[in-house]
């Protein structure tokens, strides 16, 4: 059985008829067509499905679409204007904070929340802030450097 839902994604109202068991990450990818948000472990551990849900980061593989109906979601596509990169995106690029890139959307969404609460974190605090996000390529050094760099860039604005 399907039910109607409406979720504001990146400022735009997205409605659809979905199965009640559908997960938010699939609504974002398949109904809204925003494939920046990835499905990784699918068990709430890897964090690559991280989005902002009503102002806080959430793992969208662990939320039902129907639960989020009426809410606002920001995905990786929504953090920049589509022309200039967000300082976090710029910093990941400059620091080579990725190899395959699969974890990057979640890393950036989680880092964005971290920096909103703690604008100049230590490297240790960055590691704690990203403990819900797993990268299987880089070993995290460059990811931490990227977030550190972004913090400086964002503090300078």
């Amino acid at each position, binding site marked *: 059985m399907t039910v109607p839902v409406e979720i504001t994604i990146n400022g735009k109202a997205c409605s659809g008829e979905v199965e009640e*068991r559908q997960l938010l990450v699939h609504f974002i990818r398949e109904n809204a067509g925003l494939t920046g948000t990835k499905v990784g472990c699918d068990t709430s551990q890897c964090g690559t499905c991280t989005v902002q*849900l009503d102002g806080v980061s959430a*793992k969208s593989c*662990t939320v*039902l679409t129907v639960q989020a109906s009426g809410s606002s979601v920001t995905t990786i596509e929504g953090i920049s204007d589509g022309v200039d990169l967000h300082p976090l995106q710029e910093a990941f690029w400059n620091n080579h904070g990725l190899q395959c890139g699969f974890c990057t959307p979640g890393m950036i969404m989680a880092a964005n929340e971290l920096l909103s609460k703690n604008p100049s974190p230590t490297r240790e605090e960055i590691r704690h802030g990203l403990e819900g996000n797993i990268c299987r390529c880089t070993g995290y050094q460059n990811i931490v450097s990227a977030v550190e760099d972004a913090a400086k860039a964002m503090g300078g604005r």
Partner: protein
Amino acid sequence: MFPAQITYHRAGSVAEAVQLLSDNEGAKLLAGGHSLLPLMKLRLAAPAVLVDIGRIEALKGVSASGGGITIGALTTHAEIASSDLVQQHAPVLAEAAALVGDPAVRNRGTIGGSVSHADPASDQPTVLAALDATFNVTGPGGDRSIAAADFATGLLENALAENEVLTSISVPSVPSGAGSAYVKFPHPASRYAVVGAAAVLAVSGGACSSASVAVGGVETTPVRASSVEAALAGSDLSDAALDAAAAAVAGDLNGDAMGDVFASAEYRRAMAAVYVRRALGAAASRAG
């Protein structure tokens, strides 16, 4: 992974949630969903009906209430970790909340959902057992209260009737000058507690005037460590006294420890003494 087919209802009030539970046999409550949805995706749970209470504002937030605080069942781990009231009245609860899962999980996971799920590897049930918390419940016949020690009845089982809703948790303030601590051995992947220990120690005139200690992760429900508490009573909280008290936890474990591929029952029992000792050491250093 997808959950099995469900019918979803969003309850606007506690009364409506109770009604929906009464009308739909086998229905499960959904709050933050961070315990239930993973189980449903693995098909370890397949309720036909979900009653979402996640938007009932009356169930959210922390308030001061005679001699302690009342925490709404929908209050998230992140909110508890950063609450001044929790910090003031029961700081050990904030300490434990900050150790749950990871930041995104703490943003969605709720204290009521966590305790109702009754996973012995969760952090807050252990802390609430040590704090002598009371769980406030609403059902078709009205309200009742359940002591923390009686709430979890077994592995993933609780004392709620099929159509009752946990609405809030009352936590008495720790004694003035008491030191408290929660220490855990987190599973490296899931962050659940392989073993977790909570301790609240009060000191008067250089001697321990009250002690409450609980251990989670070892048996199917949190264990109140009364032998440890008895060993601490009146002691000087010296290292030797804490060593002896922590070792007494063996007498509180009934031999029914859980074991799995990561940590055997024997290992968990051994770690219970180690983590109780660490919790006692941290609590003692904060007391006075």
